[in-house]
Every structure is written in C-alpha cells, then in structure tokens.
C-alpha cells in the first residue's frame, strides 16, 4: 500500500489481489462446475420468457434460470423476505464464500467490502407495483413488496446473510457494466486497505420493464443472440448473478486458499456523449486505462471478453475501439452474451467468472449462434466451438447506458514473473510446472 496507484506488475505480494471464490447462477449452469461445462460446450441459455405475460410481443425469447431455488443457499434470510434479485445476489455470494473455503465466523472476523452491481434492482417487485398501480392504484400496494424495492438491499442483504458488522455494503447501479464496477470497487477497497475481503459481482432478474424498453428500441433479437454476426438482430434479456471473492495475495497464501485468478486492474470512463449510444474513443480510453492499471501491454492480452451485446451499434463500435487500442491486431474476442443473454447488472460479473474459468481451465469459450462474421467487426470471435488455449491475461469489457464503461483485467495465477520470485514454495512449483507445460 505504499503506492496504491502503482500498476499491477509493480506490486509486492501483499498488495496483489486475487480471486479465491466464485459463485454463479446463470441460464447455462448453476455453480462453477456446471457453468464451466456450459461455457466449454457452448450451451445456449435461451427459452421462451415465462417471468411475465408476453402476449402482444411478436417474439419473446430470453435467458431465464428455470427452477431457481435459493432456499438451499439461504441461512439467515427466508426466501419470502427477499425479492428475486436479492435472492440471486445472496445465493451467489453464499456459493462464492463456500468456494473460497471461508466460514461465516472467519468472514465476521474480517473487514468485508460487499459490492453488488445491478441495472434494474428488485425488478420483478417493481413490475408488480406497476401492475397493481394499473389495476387498482398505488393505494393497493403490498407493504412487504414496497419494503423490498430499495436497490441498496441487494448488497446489504448479502452482508446480513453472513451476519457481518464491519462491512461496507454498496449497490452499484451503473446498469450493464455494474458487475465490473463492483469488482473494481472490491479491488480498490483491498488496495487502499479499507477491507480484508471483498464479495463483489452483479445480479439482475428477468423483468417486463427492461424487455419492453429494449424491445421499443428495436434491439431484441427474434430468436437467438448473434454477436458480431453480419445478420445479428440484437440482444436477448437474461438473468442471474455472479459473485467473486477477492482478497490480497498474502492473505490467500496464508490461509492456503485455492487461487482462481489475479485481478490485475481495471478502468472506468464515461462517454458524456449520449444516453444510449456507445462512444468509440471513450471505450478505447477505458481499455487503455484498464491495461495501464494492470501493468500490461496490449500484446500481453490473450483474450477479450467483449461487452458484445449483439446489437448493430455495439458490436461495430466496440470492435473498432478494440482495434484502436490493439493496433489492428486484437486477440481473440468472444461474446458470452451469445450463450447467457444480456443479464444486465450481472453481465460483466458473469463474464468475469467465465474469464477466470478460461484462465484456470485453459480454454476459450465460444461465441455461439454464429454464421458469418460482419466484415465491419474485424475480430476473431471464436465461432460456435470452444478452443483449448493457455491464457495469461484476459480483458473483460463492460459498457452501459449512460456511457458508463468499466473494464477489468484478470491474469493467470501464478503469473510468469512469479517463477523467479520467492512468494512461496507452492507458487514456485506451480509456476515451474506451467513453464514445463508450455515448453
């Protein structure tokens, strides 16, 4: 913490931040194992939407989590006390903490930053309030539902689930890049020494509000989401949650935690340009900031997980911004939204989990539903089939309404440079094994 603005590569072990736990609820799999299998096999999470009455829409596919059951994951909360989005955030946090091998008591003994990103907050409850208003007026609202709609509860409920006291819980309401904002917040809370552990990610639930809005903008695809395809027709809304446990490297090593990946850095920019149209130079600037913070050069990056919504505008603007930063030679660039749909505030958190999986499992998840790459999107999107790959550094893009760009860079742990350091014996052995495997 001598220099909290130092780049990732210049940091001592006590000041590096790693991912030690993952929790994931998605339409292609619940839990890291199932999610990994979904990513590897290019599973399509799409099905007809059931969350609301879709009568009157010409098409209404989405990526829902069917048969979602939070009950096994809730210890202090009762399911009926939480809306669906908070059920997602709390259940994913529970899963991530279990994956990290931390007990509630161990968490309570630490300072914990909770950061949950969201676009629509407790959206199914809000849909219900709107429906009751139309049917009979707001005087008929259910008080329990009304009590649940404050978006701050998505994060506060996580802190309460573990019985935490010394915990700053914040909900980041920065729309579709909010998951990356939350990871960045966790990283900074650890870097400046405000927290010992961060539980960060994003959550959103399928809702009529969001679907209607995107439909009105002409951005809902009729069948599948086809990012970077010349015939792409837009997004499919989805739902879910991803939560990551972050801690400093020395803390992870001291407790013998399994390390999934290293959080090398992140960047934030704001377009200050248009509420819903992306801005190429602002996105490029965000990538550059993220790479600088991570202490890596573009040629060090092996994979980009694009925001990749599958709309005409996003995919062209984003791929051009990538080519700007990568001097027209970008690494392979995939869109997880082809499989997961656009899970809004959960999107970049789920993508970060996927990036972590890609780093540890050694494969690149594909961009599915792909037929022919749009010549205006000059990237290799790894169509339809995952490919084995030894990855060192992965960049995860998150872009959003209001021009809120947030990009996170994750690295393989141990890093190449760790092989000649004396972090600890295990890390050296792992790094040596990696070197052998590569040669």
């Amino acid at each position, binding site marked *: 913490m001598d220099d*909290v*603005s130092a780049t990732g590569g210049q940091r001592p072990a006590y000041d590096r931040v790693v991912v030690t736990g993952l929790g994931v609820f998605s339409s292609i799999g619940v839990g890291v194992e199932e999610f990994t299998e979904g990513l590897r096999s290019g599973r399509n999470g799409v099905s007809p939407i059931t969350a609301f009455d879709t*009568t*009157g*829409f010409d098409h209404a596919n989405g990526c829902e989590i069917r048969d979602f059951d939070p009950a096994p994951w809730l210890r202090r909360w009762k399911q009926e006390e939480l809306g669906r989005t908070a059920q997602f955030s709390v259940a994913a946090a529970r899963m991530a903490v279990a994956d990290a091998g931390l007990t509630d008591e161990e968490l309570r003994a630490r300072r914990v930053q*909770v950061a949950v990103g*969201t*676009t*629509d*907050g407790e959206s199914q409850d*809000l849909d219900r309030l*709107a*429906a009751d*208003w*139309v049917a009979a007026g*707001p005087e008929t*609202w259910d008080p329990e539902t*009304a*009590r649940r709609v*404050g*978006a*701050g509860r998505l994060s*506060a*409920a996580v802190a309460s689930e573990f*019985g935490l*006291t*010394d*915990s*700053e*819980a*914040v*909900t980041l*309401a*920065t729309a579709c890049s909010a998951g990356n*904002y939350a990871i960045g917040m966790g990283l*900074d809370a650890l*870097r*400046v*020494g*405000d927290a010992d552990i961060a539980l960060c990610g994003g959550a959103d639930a399928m809702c*009529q*509000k969001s679907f*209607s*809005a995107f*439909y*009105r*903008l002409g951005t809902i695809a009729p069948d599948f989401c086809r990012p970077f395809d010349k015939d792409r027709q837009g997004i499919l809304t989805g739902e879910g949650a991803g939560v990551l446990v972050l801690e400093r490297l020395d803390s992870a090593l001291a407790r013998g935690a399994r390390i999934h990946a290293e959080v090398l850095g992140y960047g*934030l*920019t*704001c*377009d*200050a340009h*248009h*509420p819903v149209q992306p801005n190429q130079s*602002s996105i490029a*600037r965000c990538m550059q900031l993220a790479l600088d913070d991570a202490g890596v050069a573009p040629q060090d990056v092996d994979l980009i997980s694009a925001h990749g919504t599958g709309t005409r505008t996003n995919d062209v603007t984003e791929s051009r911004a990538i080519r700007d930063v990568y001097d027209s030679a970008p690494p392979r660039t995939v869109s997880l939204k082809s499989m997961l749909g656009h899970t809004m505030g959960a999107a970049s958190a789920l993508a970060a989990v996927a990036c972590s999986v890609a780093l540890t499992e050694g494969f690149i998840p594909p961009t599915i539903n792909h037929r022919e790459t749009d010549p205006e999107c000059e990237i290799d999107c790894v169509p339809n089939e995952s490919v084995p790959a030894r990855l060192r550094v992965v960049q995860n893009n998150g872009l959003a*309404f*209001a*021009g*809120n760009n947030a990009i996170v860079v994750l690295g393989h742990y141990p890093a190449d440079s760790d092989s000649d350091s004396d972090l600890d014996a295990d890390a050296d052995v792992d790094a040596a094994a990696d070197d052998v495997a590569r040669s």
Partner: protein
Amino acid sequence: MTGSDKRRPRLDLIGWSATSPFGIGRSAFAEGLREGRATATALDHEQWQVPAGRACLVPDFEVRAVLGKKGTRMMNRVTGLAVGTVGELLADMDRSALTPETTGMVLGTTGGSVQSTLDLTRGSLSGERPFHVEPGLIPYSVMNGAAGQVAIWHELKGPNATLAAGRSAGVLALSYARRLLLTGRAGVVLCGAAEEYSTARAWLARHTADPAAGEPLLGEGCAMFALAAAPADAPPAPASLVGVKAMTCSDGNWAAVVRRCVEQVLRDADAKPTDVWAVSPSGAAGPGGDAEQAVAEELAAAGGIEVPVAPLVGEGHAASAAFQLAAVLSRAETDERATGRLSLVTTTDEAGTVAAALLRHH
C-alpha cells in the same frame, strides 16, 4: 486504516452546492439553515396523485424552467435536480482547472426515479401493444440515468458511478470518491446524492412507514461536493475529508453498531469525542435514527453542537446525508469555533447500512 493514513494526500472539499427545500443554491441553503426555517408546504394535488398532506419540496422547481427547454423534454425530476446542482457547484469553481477525463462524478440514490421506472412499465401494461412505451423515458427509467445526464451536460468524462444506499447514499458516495482519488483514478470527484419527490415515492413511504412514527414528512433535493487530492504544499480548503466508515447492522442492534462505527471513524483519525465541533444525525424515524440521536447527544454534551437537518427539510432519503454534510459545512463557514475541529455526520438506512463521515474544518 480507514481514512487517516498520514502518508496519504489530504482530501479537500473544494466546493459544494445544494438544491433543497430552502431553495436553489448554496446561499439559499445556508440562509434557510441559519434561520431554522421549516419548509413543509401543502401539496398541489393536480401535480401529485397522493392523499392530502404536506411535503418539503424544492420551491418552484420545474426542470424546464430551471434548465431550459433544450434536452429536457423527458427529463425527470431527480435528473433535473442533479444536473442543476452540479451546474451550481461548477459555477463556483474554476472550470479551466478541471480536466474532463480526470473529473469523476458519483451520485447516490435510493432507486433512481421509481416514478420513471414504474411509468415505463405502466406504459407497457396499458398501451395498445406492450412495447408501446415512451422511448424518451427509457434512459431515465434506469438508475444511472441521472449521473449519465450530469456527465453529458457538464462534460465529465472521468469515472461516473451511481450507487444505491438509501439514506446513507451521500456518505457512501463520499467513500467511493475518496477511493477514486487515493487510487489516482480521478483528480477531482463531484459527489453527492439526489432524491426526487414523486407520487410513487410518496406511496412507497406511506406503505412502509414505521407504525410508531407514522408517515414521514418527505423532503427532496440534491447536494453535491467537489473532493480533490490536495498537493502537499497547497493551503488547506475550508474543509477536508478525514475519514469515512460504513458498517452493517445485521442483527437489529442498531445502538451497538452506530456506536462502534462512530468510535471507529474517530479512532482511525486519532480523534477524541471532544475534538468534535458539530454532529449531524440523520433524524430518521425508528431504531437506527434513535441510536444516532443518542450518540449525537453524547457528543453534544462533550462540547459539540448538534446540527439537525431533517426537522427542517423533511425525510430526504438518498438526499438526507448529503444535506447533513452541506449543513455542517455551511454552519462552519460562519462559526470560527469550528476552525481546526471536526464535524461528524452519521446515517442509518433500514436495509442495514450504518455510516459516518468525519470532516476537519480549517
């Protein structure tokens, strides 16, 4: 470790403004506070479809009257409040010293505009086709709509964040701004919080009112602060941020958590209760607010003054902690006894958040 590390730059509050039930701008806020003016007025029921009652509204605040007609056709009230307040704040600052790319913007909220969100969905439910929603409403139906518009209006291209934390949002926005500065992600951060009065919010408040306290008198508005990392040799601004601490009340024992949070933020600053010149609690109804009040009275008994805000401007929800910060800054400007001493702002929110901010007056 929370916020007083000696090796770190001093974080100066180099400007502030407020749009409040006292009126538009910093001087209106200072004057209303000094006079202890109550601001509740009878509601116009043509504008607000709520039961007969009173609220503390920003007087004569109509978005298009205040900001003009360009780019404001569909702008909702909370966005107008935020855009207008940041405009007032920037008018008092040297804009040429601000680089758009390194100027951050952090806005606290409860849930954006619940009114705009519900209006959009109501349009879907009652339109001829379910996608016949008003497109101009879409950016405002998302919680970060206001912060995005502030960025566009005032050309702020640095980190732009919206965080939802109910009544504690103003203090948590300050915490987020502090980290953006300490990590070098921004050189100056405009941060604060905004809440609008609306039909939807009034009904939410009515349905969720604490039965013992009754329906709250609602307020609204926005207060924004410019926070900057001071160069080592810079003369101090009138006030600096010493520390921020947030905790969670998970077990219903608000008194213990509020006390622990206040003790922690003082300890991190190596400060004693007698160093506190002013304390401003949220004034919230219920056990959280009661716990804050008890701590505030103890600090007042130890030689501080109490700066209540909610009794004058109403329950401001997301705006409330921002108004409390504005209030202690405003009072310190005309009270030389503040010099060299500290102000403490405390806040609690029903979701479980307990937070405190500590400022030093120079």
